[in-house]
């Protein structure tokens, strides 16, 4: 009781009359205050315990996060795939470059058949000058070398003599009075020399130059005639058939890499 204890009985009864309903309103208002405090307490405390999601919301959130995770994983995978692709591409390209280089080198070395614009020369015996019973005419190695030098001088790229490809290490020499090129005897006429040049203009130029070349006259001394045929747009020069022997060269030792050259 808020009325307390008073010695005066009349006073006490008066206060009690006043106090009884006041107690009720006091209680009501106290309850309201308690409610407000509780609400405020919960509201203020909310940020601390803010996870009020129920199972379904949690499930949804989890789903969202999982989707995000899978998206990220997908991204990672695609990036990794890209990296792998680039890696393989790089390797392949390296290999490709090596292959290309090898092919180029083979072409340059004369191990492949080459087609292109060019012309053919035929060395035939000059029959009207052949003496009956005399030695059959033969191409001397010096003459042939001179002819090849002449051809090279005028822009010949690939040359074959009687089906034998002329490469850097080709030997033309006289063995037992038979002229041989790469071990192939040049004793059957006509000897056909195929020449491939850069393009048709060069072929035309070569044709003209060979027409007026003095080599033909030199061949004439040996009772041979050099016929220069018209340039052709497509001419095939065969590949060098033997293996190229390299005696004084060594491949550089490296840690890795294909040594298939």
């Amino acid at each position, binding site marked *: 009781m*808020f009325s307390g204890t008073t010695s005066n009985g009349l006073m006490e009864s008066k206060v009690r009359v006043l106090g009884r309903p006041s107690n009720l309103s006091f209680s009501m208002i106290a309850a309201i205050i308690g409610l407000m*405090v509780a609400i405020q*307490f919960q*509201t*203020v405390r909310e940020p601390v315990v803010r996870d009020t999601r129920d199972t379904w919301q949690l499930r949804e959130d989890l789903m969202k996060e999982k989707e995000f995770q899978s998206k990220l994983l997908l991204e990672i995978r695609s990036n990794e795939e890209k990296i792998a692709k680039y890696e393989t591409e790089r390797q392949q390209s390296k290999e490709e470059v090596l292959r290309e280089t090898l092919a180029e080198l083979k072409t340059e070395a004369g191990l492949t058949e080459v087609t292109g614009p060019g012309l053919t020369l035929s060395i035939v015996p000059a029959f009207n000058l052949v003496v009956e019973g005399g030695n059959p005419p033969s191409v001397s190695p010096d003459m042939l070398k001179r002819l090849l030098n002449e051809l090279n001088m005028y822009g010949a790229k690939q040359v074959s003599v009687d089906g034998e490809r002329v490469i850097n290490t080709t030997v033309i020499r006289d063995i037992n009075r038979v002229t041989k090129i790469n071990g192939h005897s040049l004793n059957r006429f006509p000897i056909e020399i195929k020449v491939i040049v850069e393009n048709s203009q060069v072929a035309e130029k070569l044709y003209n130059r060979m027409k007026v070349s003095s080599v033909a006259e030199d061949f004439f001394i040996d009772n041979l005639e050099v016929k220069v045929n018209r340039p052709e747009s497509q001419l095939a020069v065969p590949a060098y058939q033997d293996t190229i022997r390299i005696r004084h060269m060594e491949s550089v030792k490296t840690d890795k890499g294909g040594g298939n050259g």
Partner: protein
Amino acid sequence: MWLPIMGLIIGAIIGLLTDIRIPAEYSNYLSIAILAALDTLFGGIRAQLQNIYDEKVFVSGFFFNIVLAASLAFLGVHLGVDLYLAAVFAFGVRLFQNIAVIRRILLTKWSTSSEK
């Protein structure tokens, strides 16, 4: 004596059990209203102890103070001035004064009853 305390406890329990929440931006108003309500409550207790208690004054003062404090805070928010601080200050000072008066009255009564 016990009935108001019971009411307070019951109100708090109801508030906690019903899980009522107000938006965070309104918690300022509620806090000022709580302050006003407490001020009124302690004013009522003091008035009772001084035997000048009037129920109409008490109940009307309770609601009026709450509304006034809340509207003052509202006005302060809209004016960009922290007007609720004025209410906090006023109610806080009154709260302390009331509690001091209650304490003195209770002390006096206790000393007089112990003298007997």
